[in-house]
Every structure is written in C-alpha cells, then in structure tokens.
C-alpha cells in the first residue's frame, strides 16, 4: 500500500493520512485519505485486445492551465468512463478531479462503458540510487479519463512533458479583495505619505547640505592604546599590514586608516602590505601614496619607495593565512613587481624575524578574527585593528581580552587618532572630514523621518468594526 500521495495543487508528496498539504496548505480531506489508505495499490489490467474504434493519440498533460473548462478537444471521441470503484471515488473528490470532461459528451448513464485501455500506469525509469524518491507515485492514484494508445512505456516527448509539469510552478488564481472591505493603510494615503516623505528628504538634502555643525563624534575606547603601540615602534621597524577592505567601503575606511598609516610613516616603518582581496593591493597603494604625500611631502615620498613592499594578493582565505605567521618565506617569496625577497630589505628582515607589529585594516569582523585565530598564536606579534564603525563593537572583546593591542573603529576613531598625532590636517582632508560629519548628521535626520513616517500610517489607520 502506498504511504504517500501527491498534492493535486503543487504535486508535492504528502502522507496518506494528511488533511492539508504540508507545502501549499491545500485541503486534502481526511475521508479521501482514509479511502486511499484502505485501497490496495494494484496495477490496472492492460487490455491487449485490439480496440473497436480508433483511439485518439493526443495526450493532455501539462500544468493545470491546460485544464480549462472552456477547452474541448474534438479529437476526443471516446470520453473515458471510470470503470472501477477506485477511479470513481477519485473523481468524486473535488480536489483531485481535473476539469477534463468539461465540454466533452459524457457517457450515457446506466451504460457500462466498454473496457477500454486507459493510460497505463507510467513506468518511468527509476534512477539507480538507493535513496531516490519516486516523484510519480501520485500518478498511481490519478486516473486520466482519456483513452490513449496502450503502451507499456512512455515516449520521450511524454516524459519531457511530465517533467515540465512537475517542475512548473502552479499559477495561483488572483482573488480580488471583497468589495467594501477597509484596507489597512493602503491606497491613496500610503502613496501620499510616501511622496511626502520623499519630498521632505529632498528638500532637507538640497537646502541644508552646507550646514555643518561644529561638533565631533564620540570616540570609543581603544584609540589610545593603538596610538601608544605605534608610537613605541623603533625606527625602521617592519610592520606587516593585512589589507582587508576594497573600494566598496573605502569611503569610510580611508578616513580611519589614513591617520594610522601616516603615523607609521612618521615612525619610518617599513611597510609590507598583503591582501586576501583582489582589489586590496591597488586600494592600499593609493591610500599609502596619499598618506606619504600628506606626511612627507612629494619629494621625500618618491624616495621612500623601498620602504613599501606590495606583497600582492594572497588567495586561499583562512587556509593560507598561517603561512604568513609560520613560514613567511613561503607566503611572500616575491613582491608584486616580482622582485625576490633578498633584494628588498623589509622582506628579507620579515623572513628572518617576525615583524614588530601587525596592522589589520578590515571593514568586517572576519579578517580580524581569522588573523587572531590563525596567525597570532604562531608568531605572538602585537596586532592593532583598524575597522569600520559597524565592526568595532564586534571586535571590542578581543581588545578587552588583550589579543588586540589597540582598536581604531569608525571615522570617529580616525578623528580621535588624528587629534593624538598633534599634526594639523590639510585643507582637503579637513573638507573631506566635515563632509563625512555633515553626511552622518543628515543621514540620521532622514532615518528619523523615515521611522516616523513608518509609524504614522499605523497610528492613523482606521480600525475595521
């Protein structure tokens, strides 16, 4: 006896005693389920005698859209008649009865139709897998009253149609809401409120964008220890920078990273940059070049090319990070220009001894976490993290536990770090910073307006009696 059958609406398999389909919720009816459970699953006898009349060869398979009431097939001269009790009980079930007989002449009552060969149970080739589900099991209980040529196997076209039928999405009928029902905030009021909100946002952005209040954002802890760690570096120390952000988040991250990179250049540190993002190295080159120009001036910046080693892109994710801590010579044998390590003092010193400091610049938590888990236990080098504002809280526990020597998060952290440097900011840098602050302020105002607008329709919504 079959233990499951297919839902007539979505075709998914359900237990025999299910009252509702567990996928689409169609009511299946417990009476029909019990009837199906009691009826033995036996094969239909195949009538091998030649038919008296030529049978139509057209088979009607496909999504339920094919089974419309207006559809009538003039080629179907011999409408099918259920001859067994099981088939008749199936047809009595409204949920399982397709509209195949509409438009076609029904057989005269009281007359037992000839025993015609109906469509035999299709024997689709089952795959040779021990756990294969039979998707066509529900066909066993689904009788199609269309007389077709008796054939023990389904041809390729029919198999393809069956597959398309099973995977096709059943179109659901559009049920319009009943007339006169009060809708919840829909219609004209919602549209008006949306347009009004958009207008207010545009007016605020266009008219008040130049107003920048003279306030600085709050600075979270971790900036002071980061500054102290960099300040304590000896002259000419090798610093490994793990660059983990790309141009997508460079708008914020550049503001955070620039003061720290400038401080490292002030300390005459030799920088080795490695990234596991393909666009990390070019992003790093641009920021370091800008920081050099601001810190050292153009002339000196050009002379310090050897202090920066671009290690390039390191693929492999967390699986290859341990190479940088365990065996740097294998992780960074060459720089991006293909120069071997021995010709570059920073790389040579990095291969011989561990770097003095590791700087992780990341816009997400995962790169910082991976470095602290995969690399730091191997070389025990101090790590300073420079992250985005959203990542700062997630990385704070590492600062509290001592795994991080310092943490600079968000552009407000960059401002706090810049203030500790006691170095005046350039005009372009100042303008960029004030633009960021103004944008932050007005984004907050827009957010407040959006939240208020979202709560206003609910407050003004009419309740149905």
């Amino acid at each position, binding site marked *: 006896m079959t233990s499951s059958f297919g839902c007539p609406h979505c075709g998914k398999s359900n237990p025999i005693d299910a009252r509702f389909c567990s996928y689409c919720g169609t009511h299946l009816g417990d009476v029909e389920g019990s009837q199906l459970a009691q009826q033995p699953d036996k094969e239909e006898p195949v009538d091998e005698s030649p038919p008296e009349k030529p049978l139509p060869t057209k088979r009607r398979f496909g999504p339920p859209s094919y089974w419309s009431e207006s559809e009538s097939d003039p080629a179907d001269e011999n409408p099918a008649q259920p001859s067994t009790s099981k088939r008749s009980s199936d047809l009595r079930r409204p949920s399982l009865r397709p509209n195949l007989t509409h438009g076609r002449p029904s057989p005269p009552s009281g007359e037992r139709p000839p025993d015609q060969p109906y469509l035999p149970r299709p024997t689709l080739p089952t795959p040779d897998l021990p756990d294969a589900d039979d998707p066509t099991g529900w066909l066993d209980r689904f009788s199609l009253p269309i007389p077709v040529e008796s054939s023990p196997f389904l041809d390729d076209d029919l198999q393809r149609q069956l597959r398309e039928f099973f995977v096709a999405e059943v179109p659901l009928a559009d049920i319009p809401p009943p007339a006169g029902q009060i809708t919840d905030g829909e219609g004209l009021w919602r549209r008006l409120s949306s347009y009004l909100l958009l207008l207010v946002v545009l007016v605020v952005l266009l008219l008040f964008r130049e107003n920048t209040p003279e306030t600085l*954002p*709050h600075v979270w802890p971790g900036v002071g220890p980061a500054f102290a760690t960099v300040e304590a570096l000896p002259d000419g120390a090798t610093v490994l920078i793990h660059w983990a952000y790309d*141009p997508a988040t460079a708008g914020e991250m550049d503001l955070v990273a620039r003061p720290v990179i400038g401080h490292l250049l002030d300390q005459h540190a030799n920088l080795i940059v490695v990234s596991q993002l393909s666009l990390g190295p070019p992003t790093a080159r641009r920021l370091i070049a800008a920081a050099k120009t601001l810190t050292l001036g153009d002339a000196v910046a050009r002379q310090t090319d050897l202090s920066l080693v671009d290690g390039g892109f390191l693929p492999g994710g967390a699986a290859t990070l341990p190479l940088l801590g365990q065996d740097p010579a294998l992780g960074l044998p060459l720089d991006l*220009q293909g120069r071997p390590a021995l010709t570059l003092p920073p790389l040579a010193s990095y291969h011989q001894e561990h770097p003095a400091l590791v700087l992780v610049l990341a816009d997400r938590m995962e790169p910082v976490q991976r470095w602290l888990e995969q690399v730091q236990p191997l070389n025990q080098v101090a790590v300073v993290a420079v992250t985005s504002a959203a990542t700062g809280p997630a990385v704070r526990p590492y600062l509290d536990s001592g795994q991080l020597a310092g943490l600079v998060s968000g552009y407000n952290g960059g401002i706090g770090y810049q203030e500790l440097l006691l170095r005046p900011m350039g005009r372009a840098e100042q303008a960029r910073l004030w633009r960021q602050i103004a944008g932050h302020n007005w984004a907050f105002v827009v957010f407040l307006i959006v939240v208020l607008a979202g709560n206003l329709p609910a407050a003004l919504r009419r309740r149905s009696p």
Partner: protein
Amino acid sequence: MSASKTYWHNRIGWINRLGLVIVLGLAVLVVVDRFDLATGTKPFTSLLYTWVLILSSFTLLLGIAGVVWSHLNRIRHGGKEWGFSLILVIAASSVVVVGLLSPGGTISPLLEWAFDAVIAPGQASLFALTGFFILAAAYRYLRLDRPEAPWVLVGCLLALFVETPLTGQIVPAIFIDLADWLLVWPVMAALRGALLGGALAMVLVAVRLLARRGK
C-alpha cells in the same frame, strides 16, 4: 542496478573512503601542529599550506574560465541578455590582455585607469545602495505595532543618538555609558553565542560527513 553501474558504484565508494582517510589524517596533523602536541610537524604543515595556496590559485583561474565559458555559450546561443555577456567577455579579455602584455603588469597605467574610473566607483556605488535597503527596512519593520519592533527601535535610536555627532554632544553621559554597556555585554554575548554555535555546528557537520563514509 546494471553490472557496469555496480562496478563503478563500488569503485566510487572505495575511492571516497580513501579520500576520507587522507582528510582525516591531514586534519589530525594540523591539529597536532597547532596545539604543539608533537615536534617536527612544522615543515609538513607548511608544505600543506603551500599546496592549498596553489590549489586556491588554480581554483580561481578555473572559476574565471567557467564564468567566461558560460557567458560565451550564452552569446553563442543568443540566450537571454546575451549583450551583457558580450560586454563582460570583452571587458575581461581586455583587462587580461593588457595586464599580460604591458611591462608594468598589474600596475600598468591602463589598469590603474580602469581601477580608478570603473571598478572603484562601481563598487562604491553598489555598496551605497545598501543605504536605501536600510531605509526601506527601517520604514517597514521599525514600527511600534509590530511584536518585537519597539525593542529594536529603542536600541537602534540609542546607538544612533550616541554615535551621531549632531546629538552625541547633547546626550547625557549616562546614555553613552548605557550604549557602551549594551554593546559590550548583552549584544556581544548573543553574538558570541551565535558564533560559537555556528563553529560547533561546522565541527559536527564535518565529523558527521566523515563518519558517513562519504555519503
């Protein structure tokens, strides 16, 4: 099952078991090395990491080749939006050819221009769209009549009031301390729990995969 399929089924099962034995052995080696349970394992694990580096590089190239191949097929068959596929293939081919032929390699002027003019602005623009998603989500879900939304709304507004320069100076210090405490203790506790649970789930799935003989 036919005889040939049975033959290959048995062969595949045996190969799977051999692969699982190798994976298990290497996992034990890495664990022993990371926890310093034995000496002399560093050269072997360094070699493994180098092999992973080579494999991941090849996988990257294979992925690029697969993408180009699928788009070439779409162009050849005139599939949906084949024009975009053509643009992608031409752009990718141009960048590769320029990078290979130019003396500067990946830092040649043309590639630098492509990064500055196309890639960087494009990435930044795509990321900027997330702001609109956040606004749409805030409009839809931060409503007082939804079941848990008031809690989310209060926490969100508290963090914003403290972080925003406009309001950060007028907010009392107690609110700043409250926001800090909330971030460090309950929020991080929940986040850490989720991370630990996810990591444990990964370990269990890996053990289950190994124990099921490659199924």
